[in-house]
């Protein structure tokens, strides 16, 4: 009985904070031991690479290591920003990131709303199940499929020729003007159904009475979508937008790496590919690291900014 009251007291206490005491440490011994191992793991695999950032400020030579290479300050960063290729690579990364973000956002929301309007439950279920499928395929498979579909004898050329939009098959992978479009389309194809999941969940959570009330007030289908569905999923849209804006520079690696070729590399190369090319293949670790740091810093700044904006507008925040 006395223990129980004590436990109750503790429960009230917990809302503030458990005081540090050896008794408490002993009590949580298991938790502390486990968290020790987990923290060691975290330091090694997530925090230790940050120490490697020092390389970007050194004339790094593998044989000298991080501690004995000569310090060169911002020289590598100067090199980076005077490199025309790097500036182009930033443009490509940003452009594809923004195009993909907008394209996949709009299609996912549109798809969720339209799917929700589908009357037949069975049909809804089937379409939804099929829509998830591409998300589970690797980019290797998706690019393979794209190659087939867009090749000279592929289905896209065939359809375009049958419709007399073109009279000669186009080699889509040889012209720079198509690349960003192809990447955007591939992202839409792969992720629309998956991204729609969360919006559909949000739509399901909307009170059905609101729809009924709107219908009684004479709202048509489009009015209901505009005045009930859209406001209902607005918080979800905003929080996902926040997450994705912070990730905009992470948007480009696999597909650009797999689809890019010599003919389109002016528009296909992204920061990650640049890092891979200069850092690993050419062995200039310092330059590669500098490019990586630039990317990380921009990402963090973006996240902090969108978070501030969200806080200012009283919307949900990321952290």
């Amino acid at each position, binding site marked *: 009985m006395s223990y129980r009251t004590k436990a109750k007291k503790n*429960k009230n206490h917990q809302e503030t904070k*458990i005081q540090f005491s050896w008794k408490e*440490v002993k009590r*949580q011994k*298991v*938790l*502390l031991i486990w*968290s020790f191992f*987990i*923290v060691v793991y975290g330091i*090694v*695999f997530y925090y*230790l*690479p*940050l*120490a*490697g*950032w020092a*390389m970007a400020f050194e004339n790094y030579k593998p044989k000298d290591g991080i501690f004995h290479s000569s310090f060169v300050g911002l020289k590598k960063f100067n090199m980076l920003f005077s490199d025309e290729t790097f500036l182009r690579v930033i443009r490509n990364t940003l452009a594809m990131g923004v195009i993909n973000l907008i394209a996949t956002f709009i299609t996912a929301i549109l*798809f969720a709303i*339209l799917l929700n309007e*589908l*009357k037949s439950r069975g*049909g809804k279920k*089937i379409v*939804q*199940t*099929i*829509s*998830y*499928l591409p998300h*589970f*395929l*690797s*980019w*290797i*498979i998706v*690019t*393979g499929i794209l*190659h087939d*579909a867009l090749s000279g*004898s592929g*289905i896209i050329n065939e359809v375009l020729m049958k419709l007399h939009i073109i009279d000669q098959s186009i080699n889509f992978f040889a012209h720079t003007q198509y690349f960003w479009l192809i990447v955007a389309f591939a992202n839409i194809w792969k992720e629309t*159904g998956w991204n729609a*999941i*969360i919006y559909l*969940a949000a739509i399901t959570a909307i009170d059905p009475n609101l729809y009924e009330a709107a219908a009684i007030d004479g709202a*048509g*289908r489009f009015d209901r979508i505009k005045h009930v569905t859209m406001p209902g999923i607005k918080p979800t849209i905003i*929080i996902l937008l926040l997450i994705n804006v912070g990730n905009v520079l992470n948007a480009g690696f696999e597909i650009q790496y797999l689809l890019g070729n010599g003919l389109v590399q002016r528009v296909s190369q992204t920061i*990650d590919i640049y*890092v*891979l090319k200069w850092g*690993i293949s050419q062995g200039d*670790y310092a330059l590669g690291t500098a490019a*990586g740091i630039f990317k*990380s810093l921009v990402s963090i700044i973006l*996240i902090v900014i969108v978070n501030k904006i969200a806080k200012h507008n009283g919307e949900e925040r*990321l*952290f």
Partner: protein
Amino acid sequence: MKAAVKRRKKISVADFSFRFCNMIFMILFVVITLYPILNTLAISFNDGTDALRGGIYIWPRLFSLKNYYTVIQKDDLITGAFITVMRTVIGTLLSLVTNAILAFIVSRKRFLFRHQLSLFWVITMYVNGGLIPTFLLYKGLGLTNSFGVYVIPGMISAFNMLVIRTYMNGIPDSLEESAQLDGAGYTTIFVKIISPLCKPVYATIALFVAVAQWNSWFDAMLYNRMSDNLTTLQYELMKLLSSVTNQSTSAEVMKNASGSVTPTSVRAAATMLTMLPIVCIYPFLQRYFVTGLTLGGVKE
């Protein structure tokens, strides 16, 4: 009265046309999603040289199992399949256990370093060393050219941990308290009380990790390029893809092959085999990833 009837009729016409357009849109969506996959399936079952003539849509013209036969005879693909299965099974188990333990610890209200430990992991979501320092670290740890590089580095991830934690936070504290009254330690509470209740979220995370493991290729290319016995299915598929796009090699491969298979048709067969396990499993796990995604949206 008359006007009302008229109006209702008008709405239903608009309604009908909307529904009709919506249905057409959905059918188009399904066709665009499925066609490329069915086309690959048809090519994989079609005679290779015949497929080069084009004109195969969703049904093979000259049925042949040679492509699949060629695939199972390729040693690299068999090794790749074995390694991929191993990394998926081991990687998923390791990841699930460690993320669950971490989530359990940070969801204990009494834990002394609760907020510090959470913050320690949340930071890793936003800041990372980047490709080069990570590459050098793995090299320094002796993880390159080893199986370990597939399962150890990404084992604990802040995102997965947060999803499990959110779920665990929803479990009433009274369960833990009454178990403690019965003398149960934290290990017992974790294994016997919390984990059985977390099955849905565990399934979600297992699915996410397993799919990521199954589909990853970059680590095989970057860290284990020199070790042929550690190749993965996706990496082998990538090599097949580049042999198709690279015309000169593809002509060479064609000459070597018996004449009825081509790089394109073999790749189609390999693609189908790689896709198969995922296609068979995911429809049955739908409710789990809906859970995971909704929990993932709620952070801190």
